[in-house]
């Protein structure tokens, strides 16, 4: 495995957009070439080495054999791993918005927190977050009918609002609570929430949402009794009936 380490040279106040930090882009380039890639700090176009130091293995490799390690504070660096198809990115700390945008394959592992729009329009691959994630995990772009279509996102902490909005496929697991409107307008996919959720599955057409904590359930969900799941007893609902939806919503405890 070819490993490349990228470190910010300083703290960023202005967000940096660095969609070039991706195994697909790095794989065939030498370190020198990587240093010359385009990144943006606000409205200033920079080369990567203006903002980041690059070290590690200098010999080009396949995308699959490329591993990028991000050391230092990346919490204001956006679009890491955008559209990546293979390889690995490991983020030592936290990562900024839009990590894994449109990701097709490979692995992004975030040891800290992830910001908003993690795995937006994701199609394949795996994203793991040891900390928590912001709003719109696995969602779509505004106005689009489909968000995440495939792949897996695993969050060990909690997640913000609009988790998996417009989800059409793939799976998302959140160990803790999620914010408002998880899985709204979803048309497929599987969401598992370890904690609580507020109005999950609004306008869900199809798909599955499991809430292992407490869920505030919409009045447009029909109760289907109780089921056993992984040793838990969960209340089952189907909906969202305002959209003639056939989605499944399970919750350990329910408020309505």
């Amino acid at each position, binding site marked *: 495995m070819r490993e490349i380490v990228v470190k910010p040279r300083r703290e960023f106040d202005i967000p940096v957009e660095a969609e070039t930090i991706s195994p697909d882009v790095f794989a065939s380039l030498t370190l020198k070439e990587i240093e010359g890639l385009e990144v943006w700090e606000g409205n200033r176009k920079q080369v990567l080495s203006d903002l980041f130091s690059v070290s590690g293995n200098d010999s080009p490799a396949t995308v699959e054999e490329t591993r990028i390690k991000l050391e230092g504070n990346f919490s204001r660096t956006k679009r890491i791993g955008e559209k990546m198809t293979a390889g690995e990115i490991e983020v030592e700390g936290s990562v900024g918005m839009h990590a894994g945008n449109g990701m097709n394959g490979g692995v992004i592992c975030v040891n800290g927190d992830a910001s908003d729009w993690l795995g937006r329009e994701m199609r394949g691959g795996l994203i793991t977050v040891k900390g928590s994630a912001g709003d719109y995990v696995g969602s779509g*772009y*505004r*106005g*689009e009918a489909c968000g995440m279509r495939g792949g897996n996102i695993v969050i060990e902490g909690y997640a913000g609002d609009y988790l998996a909005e417009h989800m059409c496929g793939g799976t998302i697991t959140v160990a803790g609570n999620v914010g408002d409107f998880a899985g709204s307008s979803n048309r497929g996919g599987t969401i598992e929430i370890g904690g609580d959720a507020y109005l999950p599955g609004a306008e869900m057409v199809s798909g599955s949402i499991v809430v292992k904590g407490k869920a505030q359930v919409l009045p447009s969900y029909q109760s289907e009794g109780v089921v056993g799941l992984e040793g838990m007893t969960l209340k089952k609902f189907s909906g969202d009936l305002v959209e003639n939806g056939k989605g499944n919503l399970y919750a350990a405890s329910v408020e309505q």
Partner: protein
Amino acid sequence: MIIKGGIVYDPLNGIFGEEMDISIENGKVVEEAENKEEIDAKGLLVMPGGVDAHAHIAGAKVNTGRIMRPDDGRIGIEPKTDLLRPSSGYTVPNCYAMGYRYARLGYTTSFEAATPIIESRHTHEELEEIPIIDKGALTLFGNNWEVLECVRDGDVDKLAAFIAWGLRASRGYGVKVVNPGGGEAWGFGGNVKGLDDPVPDFDVTPREIIRSLMEANEILRLPHSVHLHTNNLGKPGNYETTLETLKAVEGIKASVDRQSLHITHMQFSSYGGSGWADFESKAPEIADYFNKHDQFTMDMGQLIFGSATTMTADAPLEYSNARLLHAKWSNHDIELEESSGVVPLVYGRKMPINAIQWAIGLELALLTESPWKILMTTDHPNGGPFVNYPEVITLLMSQPKRDEEISTLHALVTKRSTLGTIERELDWGEIAVMTRAAPAKVLGLKDKGHLGVGADGDVSVYDLHPDKIDPSKDYKKVKEALSLVKYNIKGGEMVVKDGEIVALPQGRTYWVDASVSEDLAQRVEADLVDKFTKYYSIQKSNYMVQDAYVTRPIVVKAGAI
């Protein structure tokens, strides 16, 4: 400026593929130019600048499309340059992209197809922001209360006077009629079902509205004919309504040298079948009728596979589209005047209905013998965005291209249309007619669509040697060359050079100032005062488009006196 040695297609002047020079001075084609700056077009295809007679390029509907579709906005993004503003959008581009993309195709003129009078200020605000091209807007009259009342009272003279006022108020160019009567019925959620279905509360029928508006149009001797979007558009079996409409107005004569009626985006009005299940093409029947009648024209409304944003004053149609497809739905009813709707959708190759619709547009163009009777349009962005015109042209010029496309479509396309059996391939002369000469003639734009002395110096030069290329076989090359013009000269100024936009002149806006007698004008005035006092939500004095909104007008005079 002299454009040297091109192979020129100028059908209005009877020139079909002759090597000749075009001289331009002070923005116009001249016999001989004093400025001898030469543009080398040796052996290249040269045509007048393209003219789009029907597209939705400006106004409330288009902007509604943009606002409800950020997903479309992010397609077609091009950054700002030292010269150009940023571009965005595919089906609903921003204003700048609109001008740049027309220019890159070799077009120099485009007409917005529908503006309600009361919202024309907005339409002109957008038209003013579209760079390079000349433009105009057709004004909606088919559901206006004053129109309906004049029709009910059989007062065609007063109707003509109102049209004259409405064109001035909207700085409009011609009379657009959309689903006559249906837009008014939609005010309470209804529609009209056919030519003789009365409009609620007004006691008039679509037949009467169309006939009266055509008569009034001819009283005013307007440069363009009535421009009609038929009743029942978009519905299976509607070809009967279309033919019935044409038959109903056969006797109305044009007052100037042009068609008596233009039916727009005919593809959407040429449907057979009793429902979507037995939906089929009736393009042959429509084309046959046109082949036998010389007083009518139409445009294709060709469908393009992929994303489209449908937008029309036919609000009930958009409502049914939205319900049928479970799509986003915007509706906009306009007090006393119109309704309208916007629905984004995707045309799929494997969707039988879409495949047949695609075939119908092409059948119409290929089965209608005279290219002067059918203009090339996609009813942008209803059938698809105008950037696909090169695709449409290659489909018309190449049977192998059509066969290749058909092989990727739902199989019903060959059973429910005749397209697969049509061998006709259009030549450059016919293409020049459908995209230049005929649209200009249909609109009544005397200085557009040709390269005779006195014509506007709008010339497109394509990187194609018409003598050396066979469009039937080399359709990929044709499409490539048509997609990015080599030179686009607009009003004598080079705006695109070797595919790059090099200048951004501000285009002009055509509108028609039609005169009527003082007496008639006053009768209309009295009606209007009453309507503004009782019904409009704004003051009459604030209604009319002010001069500030049309900064480079070309005022075409017309009128009864």
